[in-house]
C-alpha cells in the first residue's frame, strides 16, 4: 500500500475479501449464535409456518433474502442515516424488501403465498431482521453486513427446516407436500409408501400425531433442539 494512505491502509490490509472473519459471519449463526435457539428471536414465525417442509423452505428463503439485503442496504447508507430516525429508516428498508418478496410470491407461486398468508408480511416484525440491522449493519461495512445477513438467515432456515421435516413426517406422514417433490411416507391410502390400511400391514396401529400440526409442538421441538445444542456445544454452557 502507498504511504499516502497510512491512516486507513492498515485496517484495509487486514480485511481480505473472504477471510476467517467473513467465514465466521456465515457459520456463527448456524450454531454458536443461532438466532432462534440462542438469541431466541423469530420464534413466532418458526411456530406458525413449519407444519410442512415446503412452506418452511419458502419462508426460509424469503427471510434470508430480507436479512441479507436489508443488512446490505442499511450498511451502505449507514453513514447518511440521521440517528433520530434510524429505526424508521430501517423499518422502511425492511418493509420495501418484504413487499418485494410478497409481490414476487403472489405472481410466481400463488399457492404458497396463500398458504403463508400473513406470515410473509410479518417478516417485517421478525426480530432477527431488525436485530441484525441494529446490532451489525449500522456499524459494519456492506459486504460483511451482507454475509452476516445471509448467515443469520441460514441459521433461521436450518431450524425452520428441521421443524418442518419433523412436524410434517409425524403430523401428516408426508414430506414436501404441495411441491413437485412430494413424498408420501406413511398413512392410510394407496399413495403412501407404508399403507397403514393395507391388509396384514405391520403399521396398522399407526396414526398421525395431531399435536404435530399444532404450533405448540414446534415450541416443544425447539426446546428439545436447544437442550441438545446446549449439552453438546461447550461455548453455550455458561450463558445465562
Amino acid at each position, binding site marked *: 500500500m502507498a504511504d499516502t494512505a497510512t491512516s486507513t491502509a492498515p485496517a484495509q490490509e487486514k480485511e481480505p475479501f473472504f477471510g476467517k472473519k467473513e467465514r465466521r459471519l456465515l457459520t456463527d449463526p448456524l450454531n454458536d449464535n443461532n438466532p432462534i435457539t440462542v438469541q431466541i428471536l423469530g420464534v413466532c414465525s418458526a411456530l406458525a409456518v413449519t407444519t410442512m417442509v415446503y412452506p418452511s423452505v419458502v419462508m426460509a428463503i424469503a427471510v434470508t433474502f430480507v436479512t441479507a439485503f436489508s443488512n446490505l442496504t442499511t450498511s451502505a447508507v449507514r453513514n447518511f442515516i440521521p*440517528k433520530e430516525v434510524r429505526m424508521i*429508516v430501517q423499518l422502511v428498508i425492511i418493509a420495501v424488501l418484504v413487499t418485494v418478496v410478497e409481490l414476487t410470491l403472489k405472481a410466481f407461486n400463488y399457492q404458497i403465498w396463500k398458504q403463508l398468508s400473513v406470515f410473509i408480511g410479518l417478516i417485517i416484525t421478525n426480530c432477527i431482521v431488525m436485530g441484525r440491522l441494529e446490532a451489525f449493519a449500522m456499524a459494519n461495512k456492506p459486504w460483511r453486513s451482507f454475509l452476516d445477513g445471509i448467515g443469520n438467515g441460514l441459521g433461521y432456515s436450518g431450524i425452520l427446516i428441521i421443524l418442518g421435516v419433523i412436524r410434517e413426517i409425524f403430523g401428516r406422514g408426508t414430506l414436501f407436500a404441495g411441491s413437485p417433490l412430494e413424498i408420501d411416507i406413511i398413512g392410510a391410502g394407496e399413495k403412501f409408501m407404508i399403507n397403514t390400511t393395507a391388509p396384514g400391514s405391520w403399521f396398522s396401529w399407526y396414526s398421525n400425531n395431531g399435536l404435530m400440526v399444532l404450533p405448540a409442538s414446534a415450541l416443544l421441538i425447539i426446546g428439545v433442539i436447544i437442550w441438545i445444542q446446549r449439552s453438546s456445544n461447550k461455548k453455550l454452557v455458561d450463558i445465562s
Partner: protein
Amino acid sequence: MESNSYVLKFTLVMTVIAALILSGMFYATKPTADKNEAVFTKRAILSAVESQLGKDLASLSDDEVLQVFDQQMEQVTLNMKGEAVEGIQAEKVDMAKEKKKPEAERVLPLFIYKGQDGKKYYILSVRGSGLWDEIWGNIALAEDLNTVVGASFDHKGETPGLGGEIKDNPGWKAQFKDKHLFDASGKFTSINVRKGGAVDKEREVDSISGATITSVGVSEMLLRGIGYYLPYFEKLRAQGGATGMQTESE
C-alpha cells in the same frame, strides 16, 4: 445531531425511492398476480363439479381452467329475491364483502356448468363461520336442484388436521355426493353435518372428530347459504327451467 432539514430531506428522498420501487414492482407483477387469483377462485368453483369435468382438476393447466370457465360456465348474479342482477359478473362477487351487508342487499353468485353430457349443474357459493375464522365453500347441484354432485370447502384459519380437514380431507368432501337438499315432501332440509356419524344417509354427513364447532359451522353455513338461493330455485321450477325434484325418482 443532524439538522431538522437534513432529516426531512433524507426521509423525503427515501420515501420517494421506496414508493418508486414498490409501485414499479406492483404494476409489473399485477397481471400475473391477477391471473393467479382468478385461476385460484375458478379452480375452487370447478372443484365442486370435479366429478363432471371428465378429468382430474389438478391435471388441468391454468389456461385450461380459464378456458373451461369461459366456454362451459354460465354466470348469473342473483339478488336475495332470486332475480338476476345485470352488470355484476358472478365471479367478481366478493362473498366476504357480501356477508357484511344487510341480508336484503346482498347479491349471490351462481355458476351454471354445462357438462359434456349436455346437463346443467348449478354451483352455489356459501360462506359462514368456523371455529377461528370464516369458512366458505361451493356446492354443485344436479339439474333437479336437489341432488348434490360435489362440494368444496376452504377456510381462513381452522386448525390444520382438525377443522382444516374440511378442505384437506378428500374423503370428507366426497360424502356430500348424492345427498339431497329436500325431503320427500319437498321441504328444504339442507345437509346436516352430524356429530357421531350420519343417521339420515340422504341428508346427513359425518362430522369431523375433534372439530365439532367447525362441523356445526358447516351445517349452519349450508342451511343459511343454500337457503338464500331458494327463491331463485322456485322461480326456476315455476318456469319449468329445472326438471324439479319430483322427476328424480324416475
